Each structure stands twice: as structure tokens, then as C-alpha cells.
């Protein structure tokens, strides 16, 4: 009989222990479930992002140093050929930024914000701008903003360009 009571006490204590253990695991499972919902949402976003990327034509990014170097060489070369003084400098050079800096833009993609400035003669400025834009269109860059300003017989062109590399 005493053994029965001892077993009963053991059972009750074991039940309590199991209950507490189950409670902890329940809470942990709830936390994991909420976290998994967030992860699933992240995964869905990535899936959608991947789907939209798949529709784009392949055009591999260059290494970031190569991308910047190519921009410099082609823009300045084009400027020389077209008779335009072309200068490339950091976007915020007026605020003291001296170096070209790449920052993480998207997964595996680095971005450097630069400003391309060119001085053209008024006559034929549109044609030169066209050739300049065509030159840039062959590079992994995105022209965010273009400003053309007539100053007497000269035309000042300023472009905000994002250069992408990996």
C-alpha cells in the first residue's frame, strides 16, 4: 500500500514535471512558429525577387574596381574623342567626399555613386550627348539624373551615375 502511495506521489510529481516541460516546449514551439512565419515571408520575398530577376537578360556584373575603371576610361576617352571635357568625381564631392566608395546595394551587388560632368560647345551638343549616353549604355551603370544647362555658347552637362560591381 505504501508502495502505491509512493508511486502515486512519483506519478504526480512526474506529471507536474512533464507538464512544466511541455509548457516550456509549447512556448518555444510558439516562438519558432512565429519565427518560421517571418522566415517564410522572407523566403517568399526572395522567391519573388528571384522570379523578377529571371526575366532580365543576362549581363554579368564586373568586379567593382573593373567597373569603375571602365567607366573612367570610356567616359574620358569619349570626352576626348568628342571634344568634351569630361570629369568623373564622387557624387558628394562638394561635401568633402574624396574617394570612390562602393557600398552594399543588393545581395552580391555593390554600388558607387558618382557624378559625370562634361562641358560641350553649344552647336552639336545634343549629338555629343547622344554619343555620351550611348557609351554609358554599354556599361553596368544607371544614370539617375541628367542636367543640361546652357551657359553662353557652352553647354554644361551633369549626370548622376550609379556604377555597379560585385
Amino acid at each position, binding site marked *: 500500500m505504501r508502495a502505491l502511495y509512493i508511486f502515486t506521489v512519483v506519478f504526480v510529481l512526474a506529471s507536474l514535471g*512533464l507538464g512544466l516541460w511541455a509548457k516550456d516546449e*509549447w512556448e518555444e514551439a510558439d516562438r*519558432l512558429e512565429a519565427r518560421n512565419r517571418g522566415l517564410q515571408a522572407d523566403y517568399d520575398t526572395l522567391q519573388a525577387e528571384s522570379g523578377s530577376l529571371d526575366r*532580365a537578360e543576362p*549581363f554579368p556584373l564586373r568586379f567593382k574596381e573593373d567597373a569603375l575603371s571602365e567607366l573612367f576610361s570610356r567616359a574620358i576617352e569619349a570626352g576626348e574623342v568628342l571634344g568634351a571635357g569630361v570629369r568623373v568625381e564622387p557624387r558628394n564631392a562638394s561635401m568633402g567626399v574624396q574617394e570612390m566608395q562602393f557600398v552594399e546595394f543588393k545581395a552580391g551587388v555593390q554600388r558607387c555613386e558618382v557624378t559625370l560632368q562634361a562641358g560641350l560647345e553649344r552647336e552639336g551638343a*545634343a549629338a555629343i550627348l547622344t554619343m555620351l549616353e550611348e557609351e554609358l549604355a554599354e556599361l*553596368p551603370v544607371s544614370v539617375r*539624373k541628367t542636367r543640361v544647362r546652357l551657359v553662353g555658347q557652352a553647354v554644361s552637362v551633369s549626370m548622376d551615375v550609379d556604377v555597379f560591381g560585385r
Partner: protein
Amino acid sequence: MKKFIVISPDLIWVAHGEGGVTTLDDLPNHLQTKEDALFAILPQIQRVVATDRTLDTVMAQTFSPGENSFRAEPLEDNVFQVYVARTELLDRLRSLGREVFIVPYPAAVRHALSTLNPEAESSLRERTRVFLQQAFTETPKSDEKVIVDVLGQDYVITALRGKEVLAVRHVRGGEPVMEMQRTLASARMDNPGVMSRDQDFILELQSQGFEAELPDLPGLMVGESVLDKVTSLRYLTDIEIARERARQNKRKAVTAFSVGLGMLAVAGGAYAVVHGKLVEQKTRNATLMRDIEDKQAAVSANYQERYATIARGESVSMHEELFDLSTALPPQVVLQSIERDAAAGLIATLERRPGAAPFSKSDLKSALASSPFFASAEIVEKYEGHLVRYVLTVKPTPPGAAEGAAPAP
């Protein structure tokens, strides 16, 4: 098994065989050693309010322990019918045979009545229900009964109300009707049904207006034929009490063990379910993490493979607009600046040439009407001293509209 009804030490009714009367001292002559016997005694009746746990304590306050033994049966919640007997008498009776059962005689009387009328044995709640139902059909029949056993000049009067025994008296000599009425008064009974195995007594009661009947039962005393039916209420010896307590304790222990085992089973089941859920979530978490990692690597590779195309697609160009303006503008105005931004759209600033021919905003509109880029431009005219400027703004085209989607309502 030989049966006896012990009314007093001097009057014991032999309830087997031919019947007869004997005394306590003469009882050994009726019983052989090692013979089983069943005795019914006239106990003291007590109605006690207590619980199973407190009954012993309550009884000990009224009857000194050791000298008295009692047997209890539940009447209602926390109300017991208690049959108290002298321990001395019980011991003496037990010494007469090998196995001796001693039961309270009123319980046998009640059982005998229940065999005559099964409703009498029903519970209090059932009796109430029957009473209420009958109230609408016929005159309610009282559940109060008085049973008078006549043994020569001795009478045993037992008063019952339903299941409860109100009183049991042994009257020696005297006027039986008068004694019965005393019993009724002391038990606060109002015109109960009277039963007796003595026909003369029944006739006498009926002549006095009592509702009396002769029950169809064997034997001289009403309860003698059913003494062996109430052995569940027998007085227990110390050993039997100890055994019964041991049985109760064992039952409690087994019940507690079963409850504990049940709790453990339920807790174990709950834990198994919860643990299963946790394992499932952990597995899902690991799978998602791995999938996300793979997808991130894939997206990263995809960006490196294709983002240049997207970047080129997002570029804004302006050479066509510049060409267009250089050919479309009338000679009265000159282009000062033009700016294109993906967010703000296309903004061109024109300035009127000094000394130019008369010119108005509408002239500018008509000049740009055929322009593919500026025909829909918003034109704002600004005056700064002697200068007149025109700001042309073309809002950026939404991506959907550019692809030919239907305009939003």
C-alpha cells in the same frame, strides 16, 4: 444458521424452527459450539449529522467508546442513521457461536416493509418526486409506518419514516395502543400506517380508527424472515473493522494510484504532442533557413549575373528631348536648361529673348503641340524683372501606363 431476536436479556425470540422464547442465559442451550448464528438486537437509534471522517468523533461525544459499538448507514448527505449497541452484549453473543452475525432488528423490519412495498426503500429524492406526482392524482399516502410486534405481554414498537428509523421500543405489559401512541408522539408522527402480525391487535386498532393492516409475512415478528438480508449492517468485530478500514485504505490507495497514473498518462500524452510540434517547428525552421540561404545565394548570383541589365534599364536619357527642343522652340525663346530625373520627370527652362517679337504662352503651346515629348507639358510662366521665363514640366510616366496598361479609375 440459527436466528434469534434479542429483545431484552429476559426475552429472546427464537426465529428459526418452531419459534419460541428464551433468555440470554439459556441461549447456549439453543446453540452448539462451533455453530453459526444470526442475532437481531434492539439498538439505540440515533440520527447524526457528520461526515465519514467525523462520525467516530461525533459518536464518541454521546456514547463512550469501548462500552458501545455502533453501525451507521447514510440517510442523506452528511446525515447518518446510527444503531448503537452495548459492546458487552455483542461480546456475549459472539462468544456463543463460531461465526456470529449481529444485526439491528429495525433494519430488518424496514427491509421486510420494502419487500411489501418496493417504493418504501426508494431514496429520499425519489420519494419526494413520487409524492409530488401523486399529489395531483390521489390523496398522498404517508411514508410513516409503525410496526408493532406482539410477544405475549411484550411489544416491540418500531417507528419508520421512509428510510429512516425514528424509534424502536420494547414495552413490557401495559396498554399497547397507549404505548404506541406515546411512540407516535415522541417521534412526532401524524396518523401513520400501523402493521402487526397480531390479528387481534390489528382488529383492535381498526376499531379505534387506525389505519392498520396485517402484512403478509412469515413468522410472528415482522422482521424475522429477513434477518439474513441485512447482514451488510452487521456489527463488526475489531478485526472486521480493521479489515474494512484496510480495504477502504487499499481502495483509496488504488484510486489515488489510478488517478496519478492517469495524470501521468495525460501529461505524457500532452508532452508527446507538444514535443512533436516543437520537433516539427524545428525541422521546418532548419529547412526554411537552408532554403533561404540557398535562395539568397541564388538571388545573389542572379543579381551578379543580371543586375547590369536592370541598371541599364533604369537609366534616364535625354538626348532625344534635347534634339526635340532645339528644333521645336520658336525663335522668341531660348533653352536655358533641361533636367531629367526618374522621380521628378522632365523639366525644361526657357527664357524669352530680349527684343523678340510679341510672344505669349499660347504661342509656346502651339509651337510645342507637335512635339512628341513636350506636347503635354505643363507650362508655368515666370517673371523676373524684365526677364520672362517658361518652365515646362512633364511628369514621369508610370511603369504600368508605359506598358499600355489601362489607366486607374
